[in-house]
């Protein structure tokens, strides 16, 4: 076992602090907007901390580390493209400014403002399914990380992960966005410190020339040029840029931080400054993954290589800080995701099935129950599901189930007067079609006819979802202007 008594003390102190602070923040929840968007009072620095913490989990560390181990330096392009996409949203206010101006708490809420309550229901169901499936593998990767770094067997891991999830569920259910923001702030500091420790350990133990030589020996030109790497290429790069643009503007856990900002201007600044961390969020773990390739060689399990390296080179005592940092990263991600998906299910699925909205207290009560149910689902799904392709591509294809349709519906809804209900339905359903097809058909790839094999290519399926969603929105709207006249938005005057 790599973990010593000092590591355990550090970890126990950290977990105790997290749960105490999270539950303490419950006293600040006054009403529904307090629970879901922290009363819309978040300023820039706190907004950046909570947004960056949400977008950096152990899963992020693991899937980017896996890519570095498998593809060398060429995967760094993903970090650059992600930064550019978030920068575009931050500088222009593309979508986020409009959403914040209309004071919505969830994206499907906007569908009702611009289209209809039924579009909100369909959008809510797709968002909820895509979001929970996306989150489904997080626990599994956290488990692999802890197993390799701490030197545990799978039995103890299950207990550790269950305890961590229970802590997060407890404070998210009780304190909503207030608890999420307060703990995110603390967790962002701890996770950044953990990442710094890991980077320092790799730089001390592995020479830069050694890393470069390992990439050249194992991957050749494909290790430095993403265009000639068989996992990437132009289709992949376009997909990654477009899906990052869509995720930046519309991924509910992230966008809820913009919607919690004190003004539309603050939301833009939060996005701008957070975007500058996005290259490092990807490239630092990728660099560490290359370190694993250089020190351990190419024969390791790709998902386990990076944590195995860290378990080997980080000294006891410091290891506790590293694990606390990664647990911090996971907890901040889980809490934001649990809050986002439970809010969507309560308000945009259950609520949209009724003629009138639930009362505020009923909404919070149901959201708390749904958050608990999602947590139980994560434990079960994470243990048995086998991930197709790399974890990074799984996360992006499940995200595309929702973001492709949402990008067409929200962008057209805000900036195109002819967008109507029929276009919204087509956009949402066609956007979900190819990712859902990929997830189902990839399992039976061997029995598919040749002409259908393209859908089992994760990159083609991903970019296709955005093309189909945009086509559906444009054709659906243009062909039905008379039978379904567009509904126009009413500007909200409060900010």
């Amino acid at each position, binding site marked *: 076992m790599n973990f010593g008594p000092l590591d355990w003390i550090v970890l126990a102190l950290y977990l105790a602090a997290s749960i105490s602070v999270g539950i303490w923040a419950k006293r600040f929840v006054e*009403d529904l907007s307090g629970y879901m968007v922290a009363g819309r*009072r978040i300023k*820039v*620095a*706190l907004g950046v901390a909570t947004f*960056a913490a949400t977008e950096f989990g152990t899963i992020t560390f693991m899937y980017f580390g896996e890519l570095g181990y498998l593809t060398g*330096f060429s995967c*760094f392009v993903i970090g650059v493209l992600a930064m550019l996409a978030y920068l575009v949203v931050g500088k222009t206010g593309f979508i986020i400014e409009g959403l914040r101006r209309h004071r919505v708490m969830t994206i499907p809420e906007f569908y009702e403002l611009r289209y209809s309550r039924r579009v909100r229901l369909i959008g809510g169901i797709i968002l909820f399914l895509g979001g929970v499936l996306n989150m489904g593998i997080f626990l599994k990767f956290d488990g692999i990380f802890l197993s390799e770094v701490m030197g545990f067997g799978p039995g103890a891991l299950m207990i550790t992960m269950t305890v961590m999830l229970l802590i997060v569920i407890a404070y998210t259910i009780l304190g909503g966005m207030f608890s999420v923001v*307060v703990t995110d702030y603390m967790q962002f500091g701890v996770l950044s410190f953990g990442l710094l420790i890991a980077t320092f350990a790799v730089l001390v133990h592995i020479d830069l020339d050694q890393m470069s030589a390992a990439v050249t020996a194992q991957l050749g030109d494909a290790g430095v040029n993403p265009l000639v790497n068989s996992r990437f290429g132009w289709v992949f790069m376009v997909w990654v840029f477009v899906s990052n643009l869509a995720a930046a503007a519309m991924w509910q856990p992230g966008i809820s931080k913009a919607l919690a900002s004190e003004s539309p201007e603050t939301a833009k600044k939060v996005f701008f400054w957070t975007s500058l961390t996005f290259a490092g969020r*990807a490239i630092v773990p990728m660099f560490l993954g290359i370190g694993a390739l250089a020190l351990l060689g190419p024969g390791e399990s790709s998902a386990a290589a990076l944590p195995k390296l860290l378990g080997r080179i980080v000294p006891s005592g410091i290891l506790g800080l590293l694990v606390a940092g990664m647990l911090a990263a996971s907890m901040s991600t889980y809490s934001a995701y649990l809050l986002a998906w439970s809010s969507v299910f309560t308000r945009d699925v259950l609520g949209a099935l009724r003629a009138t909205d639930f009362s505020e207290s009923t909404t919070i009560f149901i959201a708390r129950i749904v958050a608990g149910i999602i947590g139980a689902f994560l434990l079960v799904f994470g243990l048995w599901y086998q991930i197709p392709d790399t974890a990074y591509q799984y996360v992006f294809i499940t995200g595309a189930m929702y973001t492709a349709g949402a990008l067409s519906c929200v962008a057209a809804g805000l900036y195109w007067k002819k967008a109507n209900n029929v276009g919204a339905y087509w956009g949402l359903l066609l956007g979900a079609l190819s990712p859902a097809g990929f997830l189902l058909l990839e399992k039976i790839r061997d029995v598919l006819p040749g002409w259908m094999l393209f859908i089992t290519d994760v990159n083609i399926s991903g970019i296709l979802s955005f093309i189909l969603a945009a086509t559906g929105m444009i054709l659906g709207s243009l062909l039905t202007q008379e039978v379904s006249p567009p509904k126009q938005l009413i500007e909200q005057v409060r900010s």
Partner: protein
Amino acid sequence: MSPGALAWMIVFAVAALAFFGIAVIVVVKGFADLKGLLHLTGEKAPNDGP
């Protein structure tokens, strides 16, 4: 080291500096924001919330 690897190493250095630099600034300034948020909100009275 190949020119391609060297170029990506420079990208890594810039990205890492930006990440850790912003992290330090945000942790320091965010504390004041957090205090302000909690001060503005105030503690809810017992039994008046969800």
